[in-house]
């Protein structure tokens, strides 16, 4: 018995003895005392199929010894287990890292080393293939094909694809293919050696291979790997881990590969259906599938074909009894020569005889499994085809036998391509010796015939290889032009024999994976990468002169102002009301006005009106029935709304804020249940949670903008929770609402904003109609749909109003309060030290810097006296809550912030019938935000100038930059 423990010994000596292979892991054979699978010589199986098979089974079961019939045994292979699979993958992964990173020039000599050792071992390998059942003529061709594949032409072309270098603009540009890494190979079970040989090319790309061999015919393949590939790898100094080969159960290996993170590619040879399944499994597992599946090759024989040569090529169909994927399966024969070709072929096919594989006159191989042979011939007969040869099952002596291992070579002729398409033998690949001649019905016109035949080939579902026999350049051109659906075309050539430059494998359709093409494993297991290295400073970008290409579209606000706007400054250089400087600091102006012109006719961007600044006047105007809130009855209100689309203006401005009693009272009654203090108190936990969560996000930063970090998101969150609406984009909607509450005249896209608000309202209402909840919109929907208390317009208008009224005041009171405290560090410290101070403190903060210094524009329905001044009927009123809250007649020393001040009655939430419905929730929001910010952000101090938002009615910050001491972890909360 000869084992493989001396891999450098002359291989030819072993071929006649018993070859014994252990698992090959990382280039070395692992000693193994496990189970063996035995390979019995094909000649023994052919001679006595039943006896030899039984002996092999007894050997594999360990019930008999090789010594019983040593002459029948070719060799044996140790069965590898799960541990071996793992070890092989790990070795491959390690080796791939090194080998894949080595230079192409280090890897390239492997092709020559392998080629040269393969040449030296060619006879032995051929011998082993014969012992595995390959007829010697076929075996020689197969080894020759492998030599051609590793020959200089193919290798050089592939290496060129692997790497090209260029220079451009002072850069070295490298286009190279980098290896995928670990490639696992599952060769076909019947004839693995040559597939494994081809797969070995992927090592040249820098990959490491793990090969799984079937238990049926592992010997030649193992020999090829252990005796030829491993020494070749040693020749070029490759890390031994790049090659492992194991004989195992196929499912076990595939499962392990798909599950292993170490595997990159799976190179699989097998049938088309299993291949498709495997492709999906590979992709799901993140592996690249490279599939070599079935073939159903066709040969076109044109009328001018050299018939002798064409017949010889068609006879290749029977080599190896049709088990080779790329053997001709169907011949498409020009009707003009069909009869002669049929006669010649029939004679040749009938002359084929079974025999032993070492007989050079034998091309047929024993096929223990001929499933489908009888059925296919029966199908052909049923479909009206003629079976010209074949149909019997023969033993090696050519006698029919019930334990036959040869299928009699079959030849089928079918006339008419339409009928041909129905034949099983034409539609699907076969694994037995059968060639179908498909002859088109004669038509007068050769051009038509050519179209029909070429189209038949081009629409084949398999994609390996197709051939043509003709002397006409025109026909060749047509064939080459139109048959693009396969990996390889042969014209006037052997269908089987290897050709330099061409690979023996690969194709699209049912023959491969979705990326199937002529398969050079070196290329298919690598991927293109581009590299650019700047050798000198990259050329400077050309200095292009700045040419504004087109005017940039920009929508400007309307900015149409009434006569008299902008007004002149007040005496002493004080800014006039509503001007930009006024917004920055309104109080000096308001004080001066209150003192000198407490009821003053002023000009606003919405036209003229009477500005009230005294506490008593403002408060009285809130309860005076001659004062209207209906913007459509107020000149300034109409002006404010003038840029809204009229349809929306009329429909939506029917809400609470915009209506007078008695309708106002009715609307308010509907909403009141939702705004009881007890009800509003429920929001406290949520508010607290939102504030805490927001501060969690910034606490470690030490500085930030309290508006963006706390106030804005809090306002939005509370508002939409109350409404029960779910804005898809909170910040977009928040910013949009903000702008609609501003000075319409100064807001670009104001009509579009109005439509957006309307769209949101419609969607929110529809949403709540579909699935109502415990929220304000649902309550309003019920009032509309069930109780009929409000109109659809009022429903929509009220929701719109809430969008504005429910958000900005909260945001402003949070921001203004914090701003006021930051400007008064002693007060801030007092509040931080005693959080209960917020009880009185918040009212003072709201008084001191009221979030809404103005109410919406009001108007007089009749002449009204305010002190000594009578405001005529139908005029506009600007009620300044901010001024009233700083009236010294009501609040002594009003510009001083004093959190201990107990003077009640500030007007920050309005007064009377229109007193803010959400006052409680607004106050609570501000309380929670202010106390939490102070508690969580120690050492809070201003870190930059705050910015006020320009706004007609509101006073609120857009930015409040602050810094604080970053608390040590775990010390807060």
């Amino acid at each position: 018995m000869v084992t493989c423990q001396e891999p450098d010994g002359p291989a030819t000596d072993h071929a006649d003895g018993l070859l014994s292979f252990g698992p090959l892991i990382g280039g070395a054979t692992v000693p193994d005392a496990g189970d063996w699978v035995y390979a019995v010589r094909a000649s023994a199986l052919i001679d006595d199929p039943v006896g030899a098979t039984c002996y092999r089974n007894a050997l594999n079961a360990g019930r008999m010894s090789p010594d019983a019939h040593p002459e029948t045994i070719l060799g044996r292979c140790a069965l590898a287990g799960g541990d071996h699979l793992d070890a092989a993958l790990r070795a491959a992964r390690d080796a791939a890292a090194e080998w894949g990173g080595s230079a192409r020039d280090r890897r390239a000599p492997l092709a020559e080393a392998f080629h040269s050792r393969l040449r030296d071992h060619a006879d032995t390998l051929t011998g082993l293939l014969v012992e595995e059942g390959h007829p010697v003529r076929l075996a020689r061709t197969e080894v020759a094909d492998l030599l051609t594949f590793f020959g200089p032409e193919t290798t050089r072309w592939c290496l060129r694809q692997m790497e090209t270098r260029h220079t451009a603009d002072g850069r070295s540009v490298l286009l190279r293919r980098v290896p995928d890494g670990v490639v696992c190979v599952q060769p076909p079970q019947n004839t693995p050696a040559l597939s494994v040989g081809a797969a070995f090319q992927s090592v040249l790309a820098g990959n490491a291979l793990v090969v799984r061999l079937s238990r049926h015919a592992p010997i030649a393949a193992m020999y090829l790997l252990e005796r030829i590939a491993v020494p070749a790898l040693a020749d070029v100094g490759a890390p031994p881990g790049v090659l492992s080969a194991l004989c195992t159960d196929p499912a076990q290996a595939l499962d392990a590969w798909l599950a292993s993170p170490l595997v990159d590619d799976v190179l699989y040879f097998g049938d088309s259906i299993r291949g498709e399944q495997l492709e999906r499994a590979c992709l799901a597992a993140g592996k690249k599938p490279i599939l070599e599946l079935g073939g159903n090759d066709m040969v076109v024989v044109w009328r001018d074909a050299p018939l002798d040569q064409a017949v010889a090529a068609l006879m290749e169909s029977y080599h190896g009894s049709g088990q080779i994927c790329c053997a001709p399966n169907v011949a498409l024969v020009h009707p003009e020569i069909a009869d002669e070709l049929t006669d010649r072929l029939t004679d040749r096919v009938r002359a084929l005889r079974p025999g032993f594989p070492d007989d050079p006159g034998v091309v047929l191989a024993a096929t223990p499994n001929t499933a489908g042979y009888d059925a296919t011939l029966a199908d052909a007969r049923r479909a009206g085809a003629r079976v010209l040869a074949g149909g019997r099952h023969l033993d090696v002596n050519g006698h029919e036998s019930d334990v036959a291992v040869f299928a009699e070579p079959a030849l089928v002729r079918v006339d008419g391509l339409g009928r041909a398409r129905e034949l099983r033998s034409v539609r699907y690949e076969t694994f037995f010796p059968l060639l179908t001649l498909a002859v088109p019905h004669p038509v007068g016109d050769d051009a038509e015939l050519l179209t029909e035949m070429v189209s038949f080939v081009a629409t084949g579902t398999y994609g390996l290889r197709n051939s043509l026999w003709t002397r006409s350049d025109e026909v060749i051109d047509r064939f080459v032009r139109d048959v693009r659906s396969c990996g390889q075309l042969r014209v006037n050539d052997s269908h089987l024999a290897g050709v330099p430059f061409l690979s023996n494998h690969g194709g699209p359709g049912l023959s491969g994976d979705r990326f199937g093409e002529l398969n050079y494993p070196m290329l298919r297991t690598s991927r293109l990468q581009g590299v650019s290295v700047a050798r000198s400073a990259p050329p400077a970008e050309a200095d292009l002169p700045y040419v504004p290409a087109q005017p940039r579209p920009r929508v400007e606000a309307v900015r149409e102002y009434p006569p008299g706007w902008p007004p002149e400054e007040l005496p002493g250089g004080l800014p006039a009301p509503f001007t930009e400087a006024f917004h920055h600091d309104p109080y000096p102006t308001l004080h001066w006005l209150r003192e000198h012109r407490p009821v003053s006719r002023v000009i606003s961007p919405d036209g003229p009106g009477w500005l009230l600044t005294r506490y008593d006047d403002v408060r009285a105007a809130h309860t005076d029935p001659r004062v209207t809130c209906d913007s459509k009855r107020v000149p300034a209100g109409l002006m404010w709304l003038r840029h809204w689309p009229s349809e929306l203006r009329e429909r939506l401005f029917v809400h609470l804020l915009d209506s007078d009693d008695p309708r106002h009272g009715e609307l308010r009654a509907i909403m009141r249940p939702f705004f009881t203090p007890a009800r509003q108190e429920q929001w406290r936990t949520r508010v607290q949670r939102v504030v805490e969560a927001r501060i969690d996000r910034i606490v470690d930063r030490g500085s930030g903008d309290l508006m963006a970090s706390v106030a804005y998101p809090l306002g939005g969150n509370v508002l939409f929770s109350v409404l029960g609406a779910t804005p898809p984009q909170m910040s977009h909607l928040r910013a949009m609402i903000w702008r609609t509450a501003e000075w319409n005249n100064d807001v670009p896209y104001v009509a579009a904003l109005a439509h957006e608000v309307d769209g949101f309202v419609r969607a929110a209402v529809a949403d709540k109609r579909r699935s109502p909840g415990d929220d304000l919109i649902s309550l309003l929907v019920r009032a509309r749909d069930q109780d009929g208390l409000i109109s659809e317009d009022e429903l929509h208008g009220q929701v719109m109003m809430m969008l504005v009224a429910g958000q900005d005041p909260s945001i402003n009171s949070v921001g203004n309060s914090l701003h006021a405290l930051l400007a008064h560090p002693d007060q801030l410290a007092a509040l931080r030290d005693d959080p209960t101070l917020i009880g009185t403190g918040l009212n003072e903060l709201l008084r001191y810097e009221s979030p809404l210094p103005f109410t919406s524009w009001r108007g007089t329905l009749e002449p009204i006296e305010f002190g000594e001044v009578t405001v005529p009927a139908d005029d506009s009123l600007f009620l300044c809550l901010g001024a009233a809250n700083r009236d010294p007649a009501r609040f002594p020393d009003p510009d001083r912030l004093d959190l201990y001040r107990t003077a009640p009655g500030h007007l920050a939430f309005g007064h009377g019938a229109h007193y803010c419905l959400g006052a409680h929730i607004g106050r609570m929001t501000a309380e929670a935000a202010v106390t939490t910010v102070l508690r969580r952000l120690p050492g809070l101090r201003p870190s930059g100038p705050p910015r006020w938002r320009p706004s007609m009615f509101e006073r609120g910050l857009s930015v409040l930059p602050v810094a604080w001491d970053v608390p040590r972890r775990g010390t807060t909360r």
Partner: protein
Amino acid sequence: MSRSEILAELKAMLAEFGDVDPQLVDEQTAFIADLGLDSLVLVRMTVVAEERFGVRIPDEVAWELDTVGSVVSYVEESLSRRIGAGGE
């Protein structure tokens, strides 16, 4: 599938993929602004949400659903459209 069931499922997914405490999540919660979720987490969640809810959430739609509630609404509406037909 009711709105609250969809919300519960989303909370569970947020806990699973984003390590987010379900108690901190309601319909107004914004995935990025409030929870600071990674876009990768959102893409994974979208893929899983498609499976669990049995609705398609194309990227261009998912891109615009910033808040938990908007996803609930989208899923609810997609489901009702599929079941409904005779509805509105």
